[in-house]
């Protein structure tokens, strides 16, 4: 059994919990009666489960014959399917209050992703492509300086999470806009840092592009819908 991811998981869960708590204190989720923490945890578990099975199938490992392998999360989780499953789970559990729930989880999901990336520090997994920049980091015993690419992603996502929470407090966006913005920012941050990551497969760039498109369309749709509703209301 592998436990080396637990540090990253702990930091990610702390990020989700911290942001939900902070937004609740600020009254950001006042129009949502659901327990966002419960929904977030269910979405994370569903995402990892589906993503792991998808990764096994893609690698040609039969999850029916090898069910124990599902627990070996470190061997790979298909990011795209995991994201789809997590969003679908949150939407299903919050279907009575769809937009308040998804918007309420938007900043928390970015904080959780930031925590996941920052958790690389707990398992020496922050390094990416070689660079000569002054802040380059090296493996122990190696002369090769490298981009701390996971820390770049963590910083961008943490800043976006705080900005989104602040935006929701100062000028509440149209319903659905915060959720779509979170998807857009998460996809963009991964897309922008992917070229710096060491990879065998090139990374799930297609999924990131899909996230950018869906996030952008979501922002446009929710804003237009909000304007139409406001115009109809007088």
């Amino acid at each position, binding site marked *: *059994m*592998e436990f*080396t991811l637990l540090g990253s998981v702990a930091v990610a869960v702390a990020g989700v919990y911290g942001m939900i708590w902070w937004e609740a204190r600020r009254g950001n989720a006042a129009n949502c009666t659901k327990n966002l923490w419960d929904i977030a945890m269910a979405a994370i578990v569903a995402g990892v489960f589906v993503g792991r*099975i998808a990764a*096994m*199938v893609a*690698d*040609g*490992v*039969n*999850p*029916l*014959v*090898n069910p*124990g*392998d599902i627990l*070996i999360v*470190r*061997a*790979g989780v298909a990011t795209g399917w995991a994201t789809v499953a997590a969003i679908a789970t949150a939407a299903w559990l919050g279907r009575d209050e769809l937009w308040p729930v998804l918007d309420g989880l938007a900043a928390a999901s970015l904080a959780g992703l930031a925590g996941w990336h920052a958790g690389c520090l707990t398992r020496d*997994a922050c*390094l*990416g492509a*070689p660079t000569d920049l002054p802040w380059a980091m090296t*493996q122990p*015993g*190696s*002369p*090769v300086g490298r981009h701390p690419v996971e820390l770049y992603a963590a910083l961008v996502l943490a800043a976006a999470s705080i900005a989104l929470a602040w935006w929701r407090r100062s000028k509440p966006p149209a319903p659905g806009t915060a959720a779509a913005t979170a998807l857009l920012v998460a996809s963009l941050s991964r897309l922008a840092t992917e070229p710096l*990551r*060491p*990879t*065998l*497969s090139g990374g799930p760039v297609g999924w990131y592009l899909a996230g950018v498109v869906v996030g952008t369309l979501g922002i446009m749709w929710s804003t237009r819908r909000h304007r139409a509703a406001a115009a109809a209301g007088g």
Partner: protein
Amino acid sequence: MPRRLSALIPALALVAAGCATSPSNIDDIAELPAVTTGEVAALVAESGRPVVLNVWASWCIPCRSEAPLLDRAAAEFAGTVEFVGLNVRDSQTGARGFIAEFLPDAEFTHLFDGAGNIPVDLGGSRAVPLTFFYAAGGELMELHTGVLDERTLALQIDELLARG
């Protein structure tokens, strides 16, 4: 959606996933040559290329999980990096069955160490999976204990190639 129908969807997904693999025949896989520590050390030193030495066993669940990743890496870096699989504390039948199912066409040199002492002699431990990363010439650059993920494997190979 009715609750029974909701429960059926993941079950159908698992059944569909179960159709994804088509293991090769174990009879197509040759017996693995039994080796000594000295022979493995010589293979690594005389390879002329960086060597990724992966220690595995057929009873090791994490080994199954990382096998497809190693298969992909071996194909991508064929001719540049040598991949060696060292089966430990296992039977020939178990080892061949594992290769037939997970690594049938891999660009791997498969070796057999029934007692499982070679990884310890090389500076590792009795844990599996275990992966040694050697620079060309045989210097040990990194020893990774536990299952490999794609980022780690790609980074360590990049380190081997960057250091020549």
